[in-house]
């Protein structure tokens, strides 16, 4: 894959949650798998994440959340995604996401949910098969 055609992934840390071990592990795994990765750093607001996705023209918006506020955050981000015309981006989330919340997140528009215990190769495979040539 040439540099220009590389799939670009934004890994964002929403809200006040300071747990970044998982986000950095996933970011590194994605880099090792050949993706272009931008990590937002901690404590980003929904508009900062949407702005970053827009500016960087990311193909994938990945969020990492371990402090429980994922539904509130994704609901707010959803509005901005629509507003900024980012609907076509692949949108995934990982972290401490209980099963009981998966339905609500799917409804908001999340394409993939990777709770604690997910395997890195599954994340890589999901992104690979849902991006790139022939994909929305």
């Amino acid at each position: 894959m040439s540099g220009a055609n590389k799939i670009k992934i934004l890994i964002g840390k929403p809200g006040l949650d300071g747990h970044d071990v998982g986000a950095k592990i996933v970011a590194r795994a994605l880099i090792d798998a050949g993706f272009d990765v931008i990590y937002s750093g901690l404590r980003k607001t929904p508009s900062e994440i949407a702005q970053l996705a827009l500016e960087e023209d990311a193909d994938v918006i990945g969020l990492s959340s371990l402090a429980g506020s994922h539904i509130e955050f994704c609901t707010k981000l959803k509005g901005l995604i629509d507003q900024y015309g980012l609907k076509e981006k692949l949108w995934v989330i990982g972290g401490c996401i209980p099963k009981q919340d998966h339905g609500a997140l799917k409804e908001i528009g999340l394409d993939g949910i990777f709770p604690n215990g997910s395997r890195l190769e599954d994340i890589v495979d999901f992104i690979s098969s849902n991006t790139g040539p022939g994909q929305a």
Partner: protein
Amino acid sequence: MDGSGAKKVVNESGIEIQPLYGPEDVEQSGGTGFLGDPGGYPFTRGIHKEMYRKRPWTMRQYAGFGNPAETNQRFKYLIENGQTGLNVAFDLPTQTGLDSDNVLAEGEVGRVGMAIDSLRDFEIAFDGIDLDKITVSLTINGAAAILIAMYLAMAEKRGYDLSQLRGTAQNDILKEFIGRGTWVFPVEPSIKLVGDTIEYCAEHAPKYSPVSVCGYHIRESGCNPAEEMAYAFCIAKAYADDVIGRGLHVDEFAGRLSYNFNLFGNLFEQVAKFRAGRGLWAKIIKEDYGAEDPRSMWLRMIAGGGGGGLTFEQPEVNIMRGAYYALISALSGTQTMALCSYDEAYTIPTEYSARISLRTMQLLMDEMGLCDTVDPLAGSYYVETLTNQMREKMEAVMAEVEAEGGIVEMVKDGRIQAKVSKQAYDMHRDIESGAFPKVGVNRYRIEEEDEHEVEFHPYNLKDAEMQIESLRRVRSRRDGAEASAGLTRIRGAAEAGENVMPAMVDATVGEITDALVEVYGRYQEPIRF
């Protein structure tokens, strides 16, 4: 493989483990000259002569959620169940210096801990709890100077004599930059604020421990056990240097420095880590800092948690992991324990899971004989050899940090963050491949697990709304001119480079934070991993 066909075993700190140890191994590793007696320099065997025989470890489960009134109920439940200390969890807005009605706090008020906006909240949280009988540990870092001032003001208002008040604040900001992430101000002023609290407490609350230096979270973020302790010592030295730079003598404050360490991993490596660390810290503070008071040399610690070792898979197995972590802690001569509850990978512990953690510690104390004798593993050829080797490893790590320009510089440009996060990645890869064994994860796995074993702690939006209402009431009822004059005094003290603690006023956490941000600015995270 060696000739005997035995597999090569290397512990996480990089020490090769032999199949058998004898007296010659102890001698070769440095002998027993650095042991001393319990209660005597270098304190390898324990900081007290009689240890648990005289006073068992304090049981201090981490707790707090919703508003102060709800948390007060949980505190009382834990005390009724035999808990002997409190360990306060604050919500993320409080930890990052935001008031509950700040737009950035939306959805996070009272979620992972209790919301505290003002002195009034502290009064509610500790209502009916005797602060002489139950010591309180505040898990607060970025906003620590403010919350310590508030806690002391609350105690004073209730009539406690500050010169006798005991308690602890975590207040270790350097580790927050490496892991955990509740920083507010840039690195230099953050260290200065820690120095302010140490200096202030040395004078006004000499029995209060203003800092608990945490190797714990750096270990959670990826480093190995020897590095965990070595990095903690580097950080403690950075704070000590700040305070000594103000003209204090080491014996005026070092006795009130405390530590927080992790427990997960290999049992013997962990026990050796604690014994080695005690000796090394005593040596540093005596030889490098010229301490004369033995109390200054004590490695006083809370050793609990072990969250990084617990698994999302088969969560009930974490009950057994927790029990072994508690055993490690007791065998290591810790002063305080706080066990992670088995459901912590999912949620805030329920009353039920918090009680299981308490009972785990009580079993060791009352049934298993862990309090009967001091340093029970001493004299084991293996443990003594490993203790010497772990001390050597820690010294090597500290020398490396020095050679790289010191821990503060490494934090500032993100070098240490990058190093630790690479280790976390490598470990994660090893767990996924099965190279590093994890029961229930890469062996004895149950596919298609459901979550029925875990009861989720509900998040109650009503509590957050009540908290915001109560904050607005506090603001509307106070003398606004006095509060704003107070904030001006805080800004003035910060601008003049003075200790800000005496200027702390009865304003809200967010208001005081904002006043300090105006002078110090905000931390900009180096993105390096």
